[in-house]
């Protein structure tokens, strides 16, 4: 597995180290362990990064449970469940890709990484469909502003209030068993919905950003795999990308029940 690598041209430290071991490491093992420790510390910061939003969620739900009961009726649970399955499946293919790299099965590494990327893209397409549904019913906080920025008529300032499709909200709440809402109550529900949608877009948006970054990194790793850069003694990029991808999956495992599955 050392034949085709460019760093073969470098002097080989008198033959005492494999060519891919950087000069400041004693051994391939030490180099691999250092990368892994660094990756885990990065994942720790990621957990703390998301913890701000989870904290916001916890406090808000403890104080305003009605916001979550009302809000979750407006999410598409089948699509969310489908995305959960897609993401867990992509975690499986990622773990299998790491395993294939460890076993020198380069062709399998390429196939499994490609499947993982396709799953990531599927997740984003489904997420896009969900976001589009929210947009069509004017349920994105700040939507009037955003629409105003992209429109040609810049003559007057846009309305600032969250104004979802009232008829749609009423019908949806009636289906969920909240019949006979008077106008005042409906206005209260719409206010709740704005808060809920804010949390929904913040949590899923930050998560989706991580999926996009993960797919980007996976594409780089895929190109490296196609060029035959990996083998049983040099699979660190596959392994580290895998750890990141599993963390993205792990966060979704919490986000999905917290937002979609509220009885």
């Amino acid at each position: 597995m050392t034949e085709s690598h460019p760093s073969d041209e470098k002097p080989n430290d008198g033959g005492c180290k494999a060519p891919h071991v950087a000069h400041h490491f004693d051994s391939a093992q030490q180099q691999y362990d250092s990368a892994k420790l660094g990756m885990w510390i990065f994942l720790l910061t990621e957990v703390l990064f998301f913890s701000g939003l989870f904290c916001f969620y916890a406090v808000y739900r403890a104080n305003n449970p009605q916001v979550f009961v009302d809000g979750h009726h407006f999410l598409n649970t089948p699509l969310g469940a489908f995305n959960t399955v897609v993401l867990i499946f992509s975690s499986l293919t990622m773990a299998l890709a790491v395993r294939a790299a460890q076993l020198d099965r380069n062709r399998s590494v390429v196939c499994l990484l490609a499947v993982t990327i396709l799953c990531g893209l599927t997740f984003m397409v489904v997420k896009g469909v969900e976001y589009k549904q929210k947009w069509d019913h004017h349920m994105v906080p700040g939507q009037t502003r955003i629409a105003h920025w992209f429109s040609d008529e810049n003559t007057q300032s846009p309305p600032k209030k969250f104004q979802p499709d009232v008829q749609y909200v009423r019908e949806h709440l009636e289906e969920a068993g909240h019949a006979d809402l008077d106008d005042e109550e409906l206005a209260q529900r719409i206010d709740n919905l704005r808060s809920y949608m804010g949390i929904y877009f913040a949590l899923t948006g930050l998560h989706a950003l991580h999926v996009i970054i993960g797919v980007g990194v996976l594409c780089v790793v895929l190109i490296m795999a196609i060029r035959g850069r990996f083998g049983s003694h040099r699979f660190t990029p596959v392994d580290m990308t895998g750890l990141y991808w599993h963390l993205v999956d792990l966060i979704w495992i919490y986000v999905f029940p917290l937002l979609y599955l509220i009885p």
Partner: protein
Amino acid sequence: MNNSSPSPQSASSGSDAALAHVVDIRVLLGVFAVLMVLTTITVSVSYFDFGALNLFVAISVATMKAALVALYFMHLRYDNLFYAFVLLVGVAFLGLFLSITMLDSVEYHPGVEAWQERTQ
């Protein structure tokens, strides 16, 4: 850091010792199957109202799934314990962050109880 850490000699000779444990494919497929079962459970359970237990059930199932992903897909079970320690430090600080913030939330509970009475 691993138990199987090779000596400098074995690393220098191109080495037969693996850098990390290779997980058995049946274990990976089995973990995936269990994760699918747990996903089905958490979705179907959400159609029943357990009152105050709702959140507890959802978080418990999610934590089981997260533990499986971390232990097997992320190799924590086979790796040096220090990596697991790093992850648990993150979780511990998340818990600290949540619990200290939640201390204040009880202040608002009269409003929540009023809402619950109105809707019952």
